[in-house]
């Protein structure tokens, strides 16, 4: 690759000697729009986001089609199989959320971001809204792929009376997951540690806890609550677990609570820590 050199004389270096103005609350509010646009550009102009979206789509399609085609010991319907991939999509959304902040720390761009906007709440708000949007898009993509795979495999629709409601809860789950990932990376400040911690917690630690904890306590674990947003009470739970299961709004509050704690803690640390 040839390295371009500046062969032309430098352009006139003209400083804009305008009168300096101080910040105002109105100015800060207007700055949110620019911060949103900036965070969106950052999210969509790196390969990681596209890769995660592709995983959500292709993974959902593959898993859904495979289960529909090869699991033949019971009757399956699109209305059930369509949601199988959502738990993984939520994890992918959390990873995307981690990368929204973690990659800035990793590549040193956080310093220039905060130097441009010292009012750090503007950055937090923008990243939160973009994370939520990314989570929503990933959720929708995962669901579309999940339903699409089941339809391609030739399954019948099944009981669709609660599908629309479950889709709403599923999208809430993936949206909150992305924001949880963002909050976690603001606390941990290391993408690898945050992603590793999330995966280990969700797939190993919580399952271990569920073996030892009473159902009344286990129902408050974050991903137990999150995954129960996809269930209207039936499924593979034991009768004892079903007896103490939280309602979907309650599960949303639990998972949302963890998300809020991570985000608030991350914001406090963002204000308190020096940025190198």
């Amino acid at each position, binding site marked *: 690759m040839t390295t371009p050199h500046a062969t032309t004389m430098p352009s006139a270096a003209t400083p*804009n000697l305008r009168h*300096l103005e101080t910040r105002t609350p109105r100015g800060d509010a207007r700055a949110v729009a620019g911060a949103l646009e*900036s965070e969106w550009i950052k999210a969509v102009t790196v390969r990681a986001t596209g890769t995660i979206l592709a995983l959500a789509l292709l993974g959902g399609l593959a898993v859904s089609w495979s289960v529909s085609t090869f699991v033949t010991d019971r009757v399956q319907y699109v209305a059930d199989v369509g949601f199988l991939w959502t738990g993984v999509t939520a994890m992918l959304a959390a990873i995307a959320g981690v990368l929204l902040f973690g990659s800035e720390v990793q590549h040193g761009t956080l310093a220039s971001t905060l130097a441009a*906007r010292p009012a750090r709440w503007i950055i937090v708000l923008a990243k939160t809204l973009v994370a939520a949007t990314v989570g929503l898009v990933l959720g929708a993509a995962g669901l579309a792929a999940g339903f699409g795979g089941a339809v391609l495999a030739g399954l019948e629709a099944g009981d669709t009376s609660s599908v629309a409601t479950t889709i709403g809860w599923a999208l809430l789950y993936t949206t909150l997951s992305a924001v949880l990932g963002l909050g976690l990376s603001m606390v941990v400040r290391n993408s690898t540690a945050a992603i590793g911690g999330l995966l280990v917690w969700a797939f190993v630690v919580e399952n271990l806890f569920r073996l030892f904890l009473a159902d009344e306590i286990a129902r408050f674990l974050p991903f137990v609550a999150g995954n129960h947003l996809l269930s209207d009470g039936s499924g593979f739970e034991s009768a004892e677990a079903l007896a103490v299961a939280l309602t979907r709004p309650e599960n949303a509050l639990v998972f949302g609570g963890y998300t809020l704690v991570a985000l608030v803690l991350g914001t406090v640390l963002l204000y308190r820590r*020096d940025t190198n």
Partner: protein
Amino acid sequence: MITVTHLTKKYGDRLAVDDLTFPVAAGRVTGFVGPNGAGKSTTMRMMVGLTRPDRGDVRYSGIRYRDLRHPARTVGAVLEARSMHPGRTARNHLRAAAALSGIPTRRVEHVLADVGLETAADKRTGTFSLGMRQRLALASALLGEPQVLLLDEPSNGLDPDGIRWLRDYLADFATRGGTVFVSSHLISELSMFAHDLVVVGGGRLLAAESVQAITGRNDIDVRVETPQPTELLEHLAAAGIAAEVRADRLILRGTTRAAVSQIAFDNRIHVLELTDVSRSLEDSLLDMTRPTAEFASA
């Protein structure tokens, strides 16, 4: 334009920046020099609100950085040239920066042209050389047409052509009324275009004055070439004159040609050259900072 007042920062037991107070004038290039670990980078980070000082203040025409309405449009800072996502193109890197500060997108193309990166605009920054990253970092600082440029080692990675380009750009910027505050290890390079110098060592201010004032205080050394260096050194030492051997010549400090000539004559030592030599700015600054250097070479 910039006033730094009693700036102090401590990390644990270590006082990284110790009560720094100095002005940075508009329309001038101010060099910020000091050995490794002197506190230069920490000071610059405090100047743009990235590091919170334990004490002290930095103000831009009386306004604190965090209170500026448009920080990136007032102060263009280049603190770390490698700070860019390797998977993002140069154009998108600048688009994101422009959007964040409410700067029109058309400025992206202007600054890419300013720094000579138009043909690399759609290449991922992970493929960039250090020099190209430095140029992109400068482009990002120029996006908002700032009136202050704060640069930490901006010529790192630039070839001689690029260094000259940067020097001319910064000098031109200051001539047009802008404020330039640039830290650099290349003292000889800085001395060619800096008007003022802020010298720090061990976190403390050692000097904050014009380049002229610093070089005006330089002693004159005496350079001697002789086929009898050992003998002459003995007689000079007996007379209390400090000498340094440099490339077959003796460099003497705190004396005059007349005094050296007399010593040589009295002891029948043949002298081939006896010249007054002005000490360079680099020598003066190295002398100033040597007692505080964390990692000094032998």
